């Protein structure tokens, strides 16, 4: 492995560790590329996307009202139903638009959809404009590690708030705290079905069973289904498999079920709880008793049991190994060297999972500065880095949302709790390359009509710009064509 010189290191710092270079950025990093990155580590966490942020509790409450109103509207077949936002919508549109006025529930539905788009737009604008794009990439890694996806209607409106409340403040703190914040957040509890999970021997279940009709068998079970009383092991399994020890972490089906029992009671507040839409613990739904998970007994009561289990899972060496491998895979190579993983793992272990310390170890690792770019950009990375190269910001959702969907990375909608894939094979299908090219063409026409693509290229890639690409850009028949060639060049597509 050849050692990169200072200019090349500056380019690597900004494009591999960060989200791509804005004009002038590589020059800023040149003095001290590693120091440039270290300065972005911040105890207080990541930046928050611009604009006024709604809390997940507000969104949750709004969504519940929307759903109730929609139901009421169907039942009553009338437009005059309770919620304030609905009434406002009705007044706003009433006179001008007859069709919409007849269905104000639809209007609110559209507003909620717009909330999702504007959350994602704010996040993309932050990525496109930030001066600390290593900090943002580091944050996006954790948001993907703890994926909450908009594939369920209700989670859509709270993915943005989830990232802002649970992920961003904790990305340079202890892994344990990040884990705790993510798993107990209403968005995660909803996404992985925890809120309805109820201990079979909890007070709540006992009560429900007493109220069930005497008949045994089918009727009784049906009643139980209607009342939704019982365990759901989805969150328990994914915490172990995806968030902590990994699928080979040494747990069994019995451990998953025990963990699911321990977590019963984690739920979301209603109006009566005083924390409408916020996380609450319901003692009455909690499965009483001691639990045994991966050979350890937990006799804590209530929420303390979940906390104790999460603390133990966070501290396991399998977790350090699993998460550090993912970090190395994200930042450096689909197939990272064991030496790099070992460095990160050891930083994790000596610091008890202090993520700032792990970030420093990543910056210090020589393997991370290999001149050969081994990572193929995901669609989001490609689009964000294109805006950065142009020195601009996406003006609205329309300017990047549809293309992300066409490239297979629909905003806030990872296909599963595993999050978005990392490897080149997932993103470099023939169809995707053609669609990236179409985006580059349209984007260049819109942004580079009057800019010299040779300067844009050297600003975007610095020493990473190859002779072949520079030559092709210099020979382009128009400025937009030159800029499109830059965006589609092998070195811009990788980092």
């Amino acid at each position, binding site marked *: 492995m050849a050692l990169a010189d200072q200019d090349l290191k500056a380019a690597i710092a900004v494009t591999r560790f960060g989200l791509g270079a804005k004009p002038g950025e590589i020059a800023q990093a040149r003095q001290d590329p590693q120091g440039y990155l270290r300065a972005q580590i911040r105890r207080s966490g990541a930046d928050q996307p611009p604009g006024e942020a709604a809390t997940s509790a507000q969104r949750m409450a709004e969504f519940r009202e929307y759903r109730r109103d929609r139901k009421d509207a169907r039942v009553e077949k009338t437009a005059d139903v309770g919620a304030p936002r609905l009434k406002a919508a009705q007044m706003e549109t009433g006179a001008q638009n007859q069709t919409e006025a007849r269905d104000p529930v639809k209007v609110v539905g559209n507003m909620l959809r717009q909330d999702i788009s504007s959350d994602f737009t704010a996040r993309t604008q932050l990525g496109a404009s930030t001066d600390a794009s290593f900090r943002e990439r580091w944050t996006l890694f954790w948001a993907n590690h703890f994926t909450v996806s908009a*594939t369920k209607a209700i989670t859509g409106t709270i993915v943005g708030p989830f990232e802002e409340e649970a992920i961003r403040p904790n990305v340079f703190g202890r892994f344990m705290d990040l884990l705790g914040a993510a798993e107990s957040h209403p968005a995660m509890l909803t996404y992985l079905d925890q809120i*309805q999970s109820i201990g079979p021997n909890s007070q709540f279940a006992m009560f429900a069973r007493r109220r069930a009709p005497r008949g045994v068998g089918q009727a009784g079970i049906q009643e139980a289904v209607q009342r939704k009383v019982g365990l*759901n*092991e989805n969150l328990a399994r994914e915490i172990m498999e995806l968030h902590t020890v990994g*699928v080979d972490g040494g747990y069994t089906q019995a451990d998953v079920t025990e963990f699911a029992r321990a977590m019963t009671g984690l739920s979301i507040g209603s109006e009566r709880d005083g924390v409408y839409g916020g996380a609450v613990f319901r003692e009455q739904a909690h499965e009483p008793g001691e639990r045994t998970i991966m050979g350890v007994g937990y006799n804590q009561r209530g929420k303390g049991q979940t906390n104790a289990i999460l603390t133990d899972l966070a501290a396991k060496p399998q977790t350090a190994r699993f998460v550090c491998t993912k970090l190395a895979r994200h930042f450096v190579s689909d197939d990272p060297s064991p030496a790099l993983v070992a460095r990160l793992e050891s930083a994790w272990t000596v610091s008890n999972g202090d993520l700032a310390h792990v970030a420093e170890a990543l910056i210090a690792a020589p393997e991370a500065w290999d001149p050969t770019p081994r990572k193929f950009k995901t669609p989001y990375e490609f689009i964000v880095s294109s805006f950065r190269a142009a020195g601009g910001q996406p003006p609205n959702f329309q300017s990047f949302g549809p293309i992300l969907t066409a490239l297979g990375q629909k905003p806030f909608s990872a296909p599963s709790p595993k999050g978005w894939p990392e490897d080149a094979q997932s993103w470099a299908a*023939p*169809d995707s390359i053609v669609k990236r090219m*179409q985006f580059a063409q349209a984007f260049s026409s819109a942004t580079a009509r009057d800019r010299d693509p040779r300067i844009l290229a050297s600003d975007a890639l610095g020493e990473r710009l190859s002779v072949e690409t520079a030559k092709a850009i210099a020979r382009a028949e128009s400025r937009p064509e030159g800029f499109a060639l830059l965006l589609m060049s092998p070195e811009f597509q990788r980092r």
Partner: protein
Amino acid sequence: MTAFTPSRRSLLATAAGFGLSLQLLAVPALAADSGLNKKKMIVVICRGGMDGLSVAPPIGDADYHGLRGGLALSDGLPLDGTFALHPQLASLHALAKAGEARIIPAVATPDRARSHFEAQDVLETGAAGVYSTTSGWLNRAVETLSAHRKVDAISIGPTAPLLLRGKVQTASWSPGRGVDAEARLPSLLQDLYRNDPLLGPALARGLATETMAKDATAGLSGPAQPAMMAAGKAGGLKAGAGGGVQQGREAAMSLGQSLAGFMREPDGPTVAAIALDGFDSHANQAGLLNGRLAYLDAVLDGVHKGLGPEWQNTVVLVATEFGRTARVNGTGGTDHGTASTALILGGALKPGGIVGDWPTLKPGALFENRDVAPTLDMRSLFKGVLAEHMALDRAALDDRIFPSSATVKPVLGLV
């Protein structure tokens, strides 16, 4: 040596891999048979763990209603004395009644970890266990077949499923606007990519597919929507009652027809893969599966109608990574299980009843007192179709396409 044609050379290279067998040498003779070149195979992967007991509910099984409680289906479309199909699978049901679709009610991969991601890997790599191979079995099948005859493969969707990833550069396509053939950029880029092993072949393949797409998708009723392949509607909210479902169905149908359109092209692919997401039904399963199975049914209907006369040469397989718990869980859903239901359909299919045995849902018959017990290895099903429909020889199937699987016998007599 230079006189060898490329196909002859690769045939010898392949043969050298496992020793020249008589069957292998016999294959080129078969290739002269134009019928074989027309054989088509489509694999549909349903991700998330599709609930077999909802796809083909065993309404005649005495334990079904007790285990499923409120999730038990009473309006299934009857198949035989034991099984029905989910009410949303109406097109599939019509095919089954015509002898062109069968169910495999208790099939599983060799993986037992109940992890989506591990099970999907095993399903798609065709390996006996996780992490043992990184390419898809369908790609290796195409690679092996390519030694004997021209075989092309395509995946539909913005990302290629692992099933079709591997040594052979396959095509991929998803709906979108076409490429301007006059533009300079594509050829400039092909030049810039000439030494790029990832981007070079991918772009060339993508451009060729775009050219084909113009014919393949001509005259379709409505636009296929790439976003519709995932579970979530725009932003996760339904666009509106009724209209959204109908639009979804049309988009799904159109997607199936597009796939069929490619396969009907003169030089079109004969092997195809498509992955549908969103079958993980831990909660409120009834509503979720209504939507997903309606979508699946429409895709299959689109493939059937779109293929026209080529349907007679086609076998479609529908499979998922695992089934779900036999019992309903506490949240009106089911958790990760083991065996599920696979589907096989196509005009090339022989009529028949269920494929594989039904283990029943009796208390002692459940796997780990929890899941439908597998009676058939998923690889047996795949091998059967590859052997008899696509004419792949047993040695390649046992060793190369499904590594170390000699003891896993192909299901014969399906076509």
